[in-house]
């Protein structure tokens, strides 16, 4: 007896659909409610980042990086300046490094809060989303205090920072962390062990290790599949080797290793680890130090190329910068973590119900600005 197929249907999800987290179109082939193929179409938010970069000076690229991943702009700045400083062999002072780490980790918390909140929203839980945004708001206030902007900072410069942190920043950050730590438990209690969320996400969209590595999936998504890989530990940049923190991996607590629940839960634990790092960085931050000390008079890197990677909230962000010795970059390539995360969707999403596909997409935590660039 042959296989009996129902009537197949091709559906478009998006480009304007809240569950696609931006302007993304998913063309799904469905057999009843079961999805057999997912074809993502993107480019709706393509702003020619790489082409623009070839027409502006090195320092003018930084605001563009902000706009790529608008939910973790600090980390995008960080990646670019790390690459540039490696290319130009600039060493910045300790105070700058500490401030950068604090900012990057605050950004990681903000980004993970949004991701976990929205993941709940995707699965029908509205309250945790508001809780997450409430706490994220306080982080954005801290950023506003520092550089005046809430989303797109242009804060990290090649060889330094745009401003030193204001008076009282350290105290307000400690105050925030004291307030925030119990809230993480609250968020975990309402979401992670909620029966509805567990039923909707455990055992769904399992991503095995080898698939994740082959598809270049990185960051929390890779760690959820049980691979202990974090650039902050494995290939430390900046001063991450001075801090103590754990790298959480997916353990299949509610189902299989690498399912949606693991991807979601790894982020919750990472929030706690980031809090640890911020506390250490603030405590050991040198009081003295000019943030403009190592700013080069003119950014004119020597001929050559560099590929530098940093760990953003979404995974390995790589910048490949080719310099021909002029003040304008010859080529800037951004290897975006969300781009690779989205490419795995068809592999792990096919075979699940339509509603599960949206849960899987939510758990991958994509940002379309970074995919389309």
């Amino acid at each position, binding site marked *: 007896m042959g296989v009996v197929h129902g009537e197949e249907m091709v559906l478009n999800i998006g480009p304007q659909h809240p569950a696609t987290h931006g302007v993304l179109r998913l063309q799904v082939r469905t057999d009843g409610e079961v999805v057999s193929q997912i074809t993502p179409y*993107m480019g709706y938010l393509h702003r020619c980042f790489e082409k623009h970069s070839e027409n502006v000076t090195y320092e003018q690229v930084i605001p563009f990086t902000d706009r790529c991943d608008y939910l973790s702009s600090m980390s995008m700045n960080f990646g670019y300046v790390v690459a540039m400083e490696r290319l130009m062999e600039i060493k910045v002072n300790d105070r700058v490094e500490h401030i950068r780490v604090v900012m990057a980790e605050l950004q990681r918390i903000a980004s993970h809060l949004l991701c976990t909140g929205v993941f709940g929203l995707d699965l029908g839980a509205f309250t945790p989303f508001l809780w997450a945004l409430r706490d994220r708001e306080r982080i954005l206030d801290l950023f506003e205090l520092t550089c005046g902007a809430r989303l797109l900072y242009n804060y990290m410069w090649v060889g330094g920072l745009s401003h030193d942190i204001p008076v009282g920043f350290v105290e307000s950050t400690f105050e925030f962390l004291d307030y925030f730590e119990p809230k993480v438990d609250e968020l975990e209690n309402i979401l992670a062990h909620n029966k509805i969320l567990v039923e909707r996400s455990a055992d769904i969209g399992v991503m095995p290790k080898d698939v994740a*590595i082959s598809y*270049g999936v990185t960051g929390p998504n890779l760690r959820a599949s049980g691979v202990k*890989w974090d650039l902050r530990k494995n290939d430390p940049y900046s001063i991450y080797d001075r801090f103590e923190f754990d790298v959480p991996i997916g353990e299949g607590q509610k189902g*299989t290793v*690498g399912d949606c629940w693991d991807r979601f839960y790894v982020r919750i634990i990472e929030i706690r680890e980031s809090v640890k790092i911020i506390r250490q960085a603030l405590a050991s931050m040198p009081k003295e130090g000019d943030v403009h000390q190592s700013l080069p008079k003119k950014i004119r890197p020597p001929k050559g190329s560099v*590929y530098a990677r940093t760990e953003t909230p979404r995974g390995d962000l790589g910048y490949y910068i080719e310099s021909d010795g002029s003040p304008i970059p010859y*080529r800037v390539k951004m290897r975006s973590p969300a781009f690779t995360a989205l490419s795995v969707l068809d592999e792990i999403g096919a*075979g699940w119900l339509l509603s599960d596909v949206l849960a899987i997409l939510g758990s991958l935590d994509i940002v379309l600005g970074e995919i389309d*660039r």
Partner: protein
Amino acid sequence: MTSDQERLIAEFVEKGLAGDMDSINAIEDRALRGKVKSALVKAKRSGAVAKESKEDTKIPEKENQQDKQAEQSIDEKIKKMIEEQFPDTLIENSDSDHIQIKPEKWYDIANWLKSDSSLLFDSLQCQMGIDIGDDMLESRYNLHSMELDHYIEVRIAVHRSNPKIPSVEQIWRIADWFERETYDMLGIEYTGHRDLRRILLPDDWEGWPLRKDYQVQETYHGIVVPKMKEGWE
């Protein structure tokens, strides 16, 4: 799920546990393949928890064995090995930070880089295309081994008149989208790619934007394409 399908899945899971992943990968029906793979992971998880924890502790030992010295000479080592196994493909270059090869045997070399037990480049970190002038386009691959923790960069240059490089999307699956992007931006054709379409730009966009001689088209479907502005307004 029918009982027929369940039996089929159970069969494949058994095969997979015995180490025969090929037959699973060969399953035509994508939905079924997904189900089999997730069932396999579950089976492995429940059956081999003890075994896995042992494996986890092994990995750092391996890393310790790999000295920093070995990492520095990995480029030279691979160059030598390529010379032996794939004669006449290596292009000598003075820079020691990358490996320059000819395009013809790239697929075989990539396959070997991934599977050779002393290299194990299982992850393609980044693939990018660049217009290097003199009518040459270049495709660059940043490879990394998760297990042995070493990196190399491979560069393949082709002439603009016939920009063809073998595709490696079946070796590292992420190359699928990376190569589509490079094709989109620079017009390098990856032969053997199963789905080489534009990825970020519209399908009917003309020209290859990241080539240095690219001219912005005047209009696109009657919409005026804004030109790059000179200076500030």
